[in-house]
């Protein structure tokens, strides 16, 4: 059963992108374990506001685990110490009375801190803009059922497509690599006949952009997939490698 607990929260505070950051510790009393982790931060912020202090800036939006806006490195794990969820789905029942919880922003060169726990993940958008699409314009496309796609293939594409672009993969990776993110999109579109047509071009363009933006090289440690809130598989990275290497050999 959920109880009320007292906790300490050690939070990274950083006034701006260039400011020097530091940790600050706050005490919170009587937090209900049925509350979500972000609701706990809401409560903390209300407390700070009542003391006329600056509340903690953090990214969040849908609070149901799908928009990918929330981030946070909680007790050494992106999205906290639970499997296959985002921070907004993390509940206080994962923590015990008297615990000190450490909250940090994503730390990666490609994700600079904006303020406190908020980081700039625009790099992921830029990778998508480089090739994460099928080049079709609106209208003038064939009937949706004109190409049959085997269910297992469609399902695998769906699993790859479930990536929410939160950045946990690059944040968790000791090399700051974005390969899981890139491979999820490349896989989804390479699996489907609609995207297969330009699969080679896409793989090359997206990888080139990824490298240009300063993400690291993948060394297959698997931390990304282990921490991915949507359990996107590492097998996608093998497919990206395959697509990319084949494309380069064809050149």
């Amino acid at each position, binding site marked *: 059963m*959920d109880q009320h607990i007292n906790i300490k929260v050690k939070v990274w505070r950083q006034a*701006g992108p260039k400011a020097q950051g530091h940790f600050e510790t706050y005490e919170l009393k009587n937090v209900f374990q*049925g*509350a*979500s982790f*972000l*609701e706990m931060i*809401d*409560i903390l912020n*209300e407390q700070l*506001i*009542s003391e*006329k*202090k600056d*509340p903690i*800036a953090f990214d*969040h*939006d*849908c*609070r*149901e*685990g*799908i*928009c990918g*806006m929330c981030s946070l490195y909680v007790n050494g794990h992106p999205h906290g110490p*639970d499997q296959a*969820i985002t921070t907004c*789905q993390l*509940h206080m*029942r994962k923590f015990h009375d008297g615990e000190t919880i450490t909250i940090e922003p994503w730390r990666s060169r490609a994700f600079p801190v*904006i*303020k406190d726990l*908020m980081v700039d993940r625009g790099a992921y*958008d830029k990778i*998508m*803009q*480089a*090739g994460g*699409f*099928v080049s*079709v314009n*609106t*209208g003038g*496309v*064939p009937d*949706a*059922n004109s190409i*049959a*796609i*085997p*269910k297992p293939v*469609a399902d695998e*594409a*769906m699993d790859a497509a*479930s990536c*929410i*672009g939160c950045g946990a993969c690059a944040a968790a990776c000791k090399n700051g690599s974005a390969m899981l993110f890139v491979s999820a999109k490349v896989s*989804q579109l390479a699996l*489907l006949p*609609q995207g297969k047509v330009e699969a080679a071009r896409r793989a090359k363009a997206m990888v080139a952009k990824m490298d240009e933006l300063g993400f690291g090289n993948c060394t297959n440690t698997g931390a990304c997939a282990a921490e991915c809130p949507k359990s996107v598989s590492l097998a996608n990275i093998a497919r990206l490698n395959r697509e990319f290497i084949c494309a380069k050999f064809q050149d």
Partner: protein
Amino acid sequence: MANNIITPEMAKIPQGPLEKKWTNYKDHQKLVNPANKRKLDVIVVGTGLAGASAAASLAEMGFNVLNFCIQDSPRRAHSIAAQGGINAAKNYQNDGDSVYRLYYDTIKGGDYRAREANVYRLAEVSNSIIDQCVAQGVPFAREYGGLLDNRSFGGAQVSRTFYAKGQTGQQLLLGAYSALSRQIGKGKVKMYTRYEMLDIVMIKDADGTERARGIIARNLVTGRIERFFAHAVVVGTGGYGNTFFLSTNAMASNGSAAMQMYRHGAYFANPCYAQIHPTCIPKHGDFQSKLTLMSESLRNDGRIWVPKKLEDAKKLQAGEIKGRDIPEEDRDYYLERRYPAFGNLVPRDVASRAAKERCDAGFGVNNTGLAVFLDFSDAIQRLGKDVVAQKYGNLFQMYEKIVDENPYENPMMIFPAIHYTMGGIWVDYELQTSVKGLFCIGEANFSDHGANRLGASALMQGLADGYFVLPYTIQNYLADQISVPRMSTELPEFAAAEKAVEEKIAKLMKIQGKRSVDSIHKELGLIMWDFVGMGRTAEGLKTAIKKIDEIKKEFWSNVFIPGQADALNNELEKALRLADFIEIGRLMAVDALHREESCGGHFREEYQTPDGEALRQDEKFSYVGCWKFMGEGNEPELVKEPLDYEFTERKTRNYKA
């Protein structure tokens, strides 16, 4: 305008039979040639299904697009959270579906409060949406034969809903986002993330006509106020459900863009039509920040019930027993009992009210007494746990993470929550508001759902507007703007608009009161839920208006916003939005008070049948209630667009037989 009436001509509804209207329109509308498209700029605010698809499509056509969103990426828009699916009249399942049937179901589901021509067009383009999405690589669910799978969805008797696991909204949005990304990469769309529109800039033509010519937006990272020009402004910023504080909307979803349009003379249509979704996870504490929706598809296999005996309900509320302890014969499957034909699949408004009715009668099943059971034990027995897990596994997992209870073993608990707002800014057939050059698409407009929206229709409308309607109709407007050169943002109109925004912010920052923004917002939410929620009365609505006026006073005199205006400041953002929520809340109450009937999402307790069903007053209220801004502090004025049903017979919605 004669007697404040909007005629079909003013709404630009094309002539001809229903099924020919859209074709006729397209055949005769003005187009812009490719060379001129390059000279025209369009601002699109919002990157949800409607905004992203419109921005991408307009850019593909050759217009220069400036696209704004408040999140850190266009992919975060709240369309992403839609779970269940998207409707289309493909009739792939050979169950007798057709464009007409989709049209008819939508009009009927909306309780005959939508415009016939718009709804028919929506049904007509629905098929193109599916084609488009598949071509973009949206991984819809498929059958073993490789063709697309469909399921049935609340309020429909055919299987016309396409879906991608429980993440249809996400996949459709990512499809639109990918199309948008492609155009950003090509430089045809200039993307502004973490920007919030704070006003629309109106500029008069030489002949005195006022037109929307740009926006004032705040860079949420730096706090800087910036000016942007465009030949037309398109707003697709979603609904205003967060007026209730607790809703299924995202934390940043807001109605401020709508209020900015409203203050510039765009009518706010049917604000009282708000949809309450029946299958949400019940509230569990005062600290709660939002309610989580679970897909309506759960009602396909789940059965909704409460105990038959009051003493069982009491025991459940006290936590002495669990749902599974109550024997079959003591369970009241009240939807199946009341609506034998549709059973658990009745439309959302009906299901929500029925749940409220049972809970009001004391049969609620959790500690707050505000929950009913959604039970899968039958489905698990019939289909096996694996099949159920395959269909609903991710939803069950989500439920378990939040509630900490295994839904395979004990029935889920659900309760209705505010989910979608059918009301919105009034638009004509071209999706243009009553302000020239200002367009409104998606949930933000009022157009297609009438008084109630059917499941899987929101995604359809958002994408229809963005991909297939607006990109055509806006040309009819822009064709006359090709000789208008790009204007400088140094014009006095821009300067004045910026100054007004800065003054408003300064005023808010200066209050330095005692209360946080959220504490006032929660208070507003409670009033809305109690008096402007599922069951409304004249007296309650009058109370609401009075209380909202008090909240407004409290807000403007006692809110506390920490930090600076010229830096990243979440509290300031929230305060600006709350200032508008307070106005919207009032407008909802005013509209609900005026509409003396029950229809769809609007239920006035004075107007119901003896067995508690909604009672429409077609004679008096068969119109779109549009509210016109009459200046700060003045009561808005009602403008009516009569809904004369030419092609469809109005019936009482009946889900019993």
